[in-house]
């Protein structure tokens, strides 16, 4: 089944009449009154709908009368059988001759009724068929030459799109006319049309539910726009845009092989034809991708049902045993133990439907047609290789396959069971047995998932055959047909260039694009919806594809998105109950649980937090206004997605003396941006001073995991703090050169680790004394920074590394005022701890000042303060607690002399 959307329809509008079909109330000479239309395989599709009050009433009356007549005919048709039974019931229990039982030889008014009703039955058959003819309004035709201009169009065959409208869309059109008539609008516009599409068609309404759009809100917006149209006398007529919409809808329906134009077919043309409507949709967060994919979803579901019906019909002929239809196959007791019959599973509908992989399946068939006996599907884990094989199994059931696959079984050989627990010699024996049995049977195609598992297994010395060679030789000489799958890395490592690689033709299976992946997933959702009794919105699907693409780099579409949607479905069913709506937020929640990225990072409205980032950071960080401002601005840019997606979120270099808050700012960023200060990977670069530290950082091919790469792989959303970066070995710094530029790093095992969701902060004490001197001398920070880079930094770091930093931020040495604020922050933490024990803490301003002065040393910043507070405050409080002097409800006071006192609470 192909999932790609149909190509855009070329619309032609007459330039002379502007699509109206008339100029000054006369038929347009140029277009002959056609006005607007679309070219469909050489035919011109135009719209001419006969909409008037009498015609609408006639149609409705006709519908009612025919419904009543149908009911009467069915009753009459059944009445005949009742009459005949009644006639038999009236017969005496004993009859003179058999002739009396033959009703066609007897005279009776009951038998007359029977014959009359039989005539009515014939009428019922006739009417039923007529209904089927009426339903089929679109006929296929052979493509013709495309007309180039209106002159050519006037000669080209034409189709009136209005004649192709189905019952439901006809009702919509009539209601649209009545609405415009009621509102006294001169023209029937697309607004009238969409209003009725939403109110009449359940399918259209449910599509908007899928798109998570409040139908009432949409109707209100459309209503508002309708109320702006000025009323005019006269009967309304179809606007150019509506004619265009209907013509395009006809083309859409034709291209999708429908028998009539349905309301859903109008949605994309409506969106395309009307700028105002496009704006209304856009306002409700419906863009082209969303609309196209949601409409495709509805079509995929229809097609799945249609295909299933067709499939069931065809599957009747496929044998469900291991015998082929010609009874030439041989019993396969060995294979029966170690394999799974995919064709039987397909016959009974146990396999998933394969969507959007026609190209790959055709490629497999082309190889078989060209004489290849083995095909290997190569692609990343999760792109759907197995699904393609299941698709082939389904086609084998309907026999829609090349000759060599007809009347055959597709057996999946369970390699784990076949080789599990066996010595290499036994494994070889089993493989030979499986191959021989397959060849002897003559009706089996073998399928091996992850075929690389059999390479490198051999029974004797290095020169003896390995299993891959046995298989390759069977494919080459014994006429064995094999399908296999293999990941890209394993193909290169184990198969390429080897005998099995040569025996198997390679079909590459690529990861689908986002829109293709969405449509592939749409075909699976119905299963989850019925399993979990939930309803997925389009946003849930789109988010699953988008977020998994962004955060799950070592897995592949569509599987990774499907796994997330399944989890989201389970979670929604459990939390919200049956019939719950699975939204984009539910999916974001699952992604955040899987990747350890806080939900807030992914989906919550965090604009307020970002706008007040400086204030938020200053809640736990004192001073350094310039540094905080630069960091906050950079993070806002990153969050608003105004950054290149191929680099880390931000790379900063913090310069300044010790104890001025460099690490504290990094921790604060981790907390504010990632939601928790634990989202920080701290690397003390003085531990990476030797050249072999690279292995410690990224791991080795032998299997040792790298500290950095493993941490980032597990939680890609992290702040990486490189403490004292200047102390690292130059080779380590070279690694970061690549990380900061490309946002990725290959670890020792060859895996690519993604750094695009990390913030990298390097800190350094380079030029600390210089900074202190300059600040004391009153120099501007910007000037200090320039000097630092030019004179001090270039000596320790390569210029290209310095250039990779988004910001080199100089931290000024702390002033006494800053230290007082820091002391207050630190004591507030103690206060919180005491509150937890039911005690209070009061600090006098003077006492605080004394403590700050005592803990402040210009060359060490605020670092000695922590030690001082521990000695002078925390230790004393601890002693008082242990001695029982300090009890619940007491208050600890730090008085004007910075001494700790206890104010006892009043006795109760």
């Amino acid at each position, binding site marked *: 089944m192909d999932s790609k959307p149909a190509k855009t329809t070329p619309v032609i509008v007459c330039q002379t009449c502007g699509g109206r079909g008339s100029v000054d109330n006369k038929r347009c000479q140029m277009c002959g009154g056609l006005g607007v239309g679309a070219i469909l395989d050489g035919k011109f599709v135009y719209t001419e709908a006969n909409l008037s009050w009498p015609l609408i*009433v006639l149609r409705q009356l006709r519908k009612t009368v025919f419904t009543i*007549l149908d009911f009467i005919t069915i009753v009459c048709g059944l009445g005949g059988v009742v009459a005949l039974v009644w006639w038999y019931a009236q017969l005496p229990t004993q009859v003179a001759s058999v002739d009396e039982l033959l009703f066609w030889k007897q005279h009776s008014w009951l038998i007359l009724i029977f014959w009359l009703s*039989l005539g009515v039955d014939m009428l019922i058959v006739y*009417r039923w068929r*007529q209904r089927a003819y009426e339903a089929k309004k679109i006929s296929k035709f052979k493509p013709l030459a495309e007309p180039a201009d209106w002159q050519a169009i006037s000669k080209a065959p034409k189709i009136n799109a209005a004649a192709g409208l189905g019952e439901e869309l006809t009702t919509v059109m009539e209601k649209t006319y009545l609405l415009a008539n009621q509102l006294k609008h001169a023209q029937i516009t697309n607004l009238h049309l969409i209003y009725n599409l939403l109110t009449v068609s359940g399918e259209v309404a449910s599509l908007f539910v899928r798109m998570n759009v409040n139908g009432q809100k949409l109707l209100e917006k459309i209503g508002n726009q309708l109320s702006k149209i000025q009323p005019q006398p006269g009967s309304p007529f179809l606007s150019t845009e509506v004619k265009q919409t209907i013509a395009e809808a006809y083309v859409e329906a034709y291209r999708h092989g429908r028998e009539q134009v349905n309301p859903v077919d109008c949605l994309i043309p409506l969106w395309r034809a009307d700028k105002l409507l496009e704006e209304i949709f856009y306002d409700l967060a419906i863009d082209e991708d969303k609309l196209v994919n949601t409409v495709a979803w509805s079509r995929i579901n229809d097609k799945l049902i249609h295909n299933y019906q067709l499939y069931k019909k065809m599957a009747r002929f496929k044998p469900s045993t291991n015998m082929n*239809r*010609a*009874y030439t196959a041989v019993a396969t007791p060995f294979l029966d133990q170690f394999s799974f019959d995919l064709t039987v599973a397909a016959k009974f509908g146990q396999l998933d439907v394969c969507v959007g992989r026609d190209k790959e399946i055709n490629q497999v068939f082309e190889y078989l047609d060209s004489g290849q006996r083995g095909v290997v599907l190569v692609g990343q884990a999760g792109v759907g290789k197995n699904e393609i094989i299941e698709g082939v199994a389904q086609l084998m059931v309907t026999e829609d396959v090349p000759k060599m696959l007809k009347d055959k079984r597709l057996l999946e050989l369970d390699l784990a069971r076949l080789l599990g627990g066996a010595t290499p010699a036994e494994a070889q024996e089993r493989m030979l047995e499986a191959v021989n049995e397959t060849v002897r049977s003559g009706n089996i195609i073998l399928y091996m998932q992850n075929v690389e598992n059999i390479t490198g297994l051999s029974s004797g010395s290095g020169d003896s055959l390995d299993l891959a060679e046995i298989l390759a030789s069977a494919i080459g000489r014994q006429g064995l047909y094999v399908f296999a799958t293999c990941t890209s890395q394993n193909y290169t490592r184990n198969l390429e260039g080897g005998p099995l690689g040569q025996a198997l033709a390679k079909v590459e299976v690529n990861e689908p694009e986002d829109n293709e992946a969405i449509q592939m997933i749409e075909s699976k959702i119905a299963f989850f919806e019925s399993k979990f009794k939930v309803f997925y919105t389009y946003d849930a699907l789109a988010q699953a594809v988008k977020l998994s693409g962004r955060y799950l780099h070592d897995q592949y579409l569509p599987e990774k998105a499907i796994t997330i949607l399944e989890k989201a479905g389970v979670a929604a069913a459990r939390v919200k109950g049956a019939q719950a709506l699975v939204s984009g937020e539910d999916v974001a929640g699952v992604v955040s649980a899987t990747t350890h990225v806080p939900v807030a990072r992914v989906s919550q409205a965090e604009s307020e937090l970002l706008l007040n980032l400086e204030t938020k950071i200053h809640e736990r960080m004192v001073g350094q206004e310039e540094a905080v401002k630069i960091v906050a601005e950079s993070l806002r840019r990153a969050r608003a997605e105004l950054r290149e997606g191929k680099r880390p979120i931000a790379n900063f270099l913090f310069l300044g003396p010790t104890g001025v808050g460099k690490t504290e700012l990094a921790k604060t960023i981790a907390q504010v941006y990632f939601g928790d200060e634990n989202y920080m990977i701290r690397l003390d670069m003085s531990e990476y001073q030797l050249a072999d530290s690279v292995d410690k950082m990224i791991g080795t091919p032998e299997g040792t995991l790298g500290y950095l790469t493993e941490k980032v792989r597990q939680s890609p959303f992290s702040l990486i703090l490189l403490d004292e970066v200047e102390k690292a070995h130059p080779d380590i710094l070279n690694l970061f050169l690549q990380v900061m530029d490309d946002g990725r790093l290959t670890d020792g095992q060859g895996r690519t680790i993604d750094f695009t969701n990390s913030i990298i902060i390097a800190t350094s004490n380079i030029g600390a004394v210089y900074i202190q001197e300059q600040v004391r001398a009153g120099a501007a920070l910007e000037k200090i920074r320039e000097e630092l880079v030019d004179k001090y930094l270039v000596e320790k770091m390569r210029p290209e590394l310095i250039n990779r930093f988004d910001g080199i931020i100089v931290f000024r040495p702390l002033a006494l005022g800053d230290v007082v604020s820091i002391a207050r922050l630190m004591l507030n933490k103690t206060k919180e701890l005491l509150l937890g024990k039911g005690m209070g803490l009061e600090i006098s301003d003077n006492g605080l000042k004394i403590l700050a002065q005592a803990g402040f040393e210009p060359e060490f910043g605020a670092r000695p303060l922590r030690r001082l507070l521990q000695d002078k405050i925390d230790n004393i409080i601890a002693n008082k607690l242990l001695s029982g002097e300090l009890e619940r409800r007491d208050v600890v006071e730090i008085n004007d002399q910075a001494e700790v006192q206890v104010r006892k609470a009043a006795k109760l």
Partner: protein
Amino acid sequence: MPTNNFLFYFGQIVFELARDLALFPLWWYTRGLFELAQKISQFWADSLKGLNLVVWLKNIFVPMYGQRDFTGVLISIFMRIVQIILRSIGFALLLLLGVVIILLWLGLPVLILWQIIWQLT
């Protein structure tokens, strides 16, 4: 307006009904018959496929169950002939069923008409 035009609308519907009644016998012996013939031929094709008659005929000398020894081949040919005969009988019955249905379709209007007239006389 609806009351004034009611007769007109109703006339249209009655006309359509009358047209249907008039055209119905014609449809029965033209398009209806053609569609039935198509359905029956599809039924025969499906039956043929379901009974595997062609596959059995094609493989008449191919040994069953891969038994290629002389006895195996002999038994296989015998079994295949028996199968082909049984399946042919089955198919002939289904062919007959199709023919009966077509004959019924052809004869039903005449039969009904004749019976009604006979009942009334």
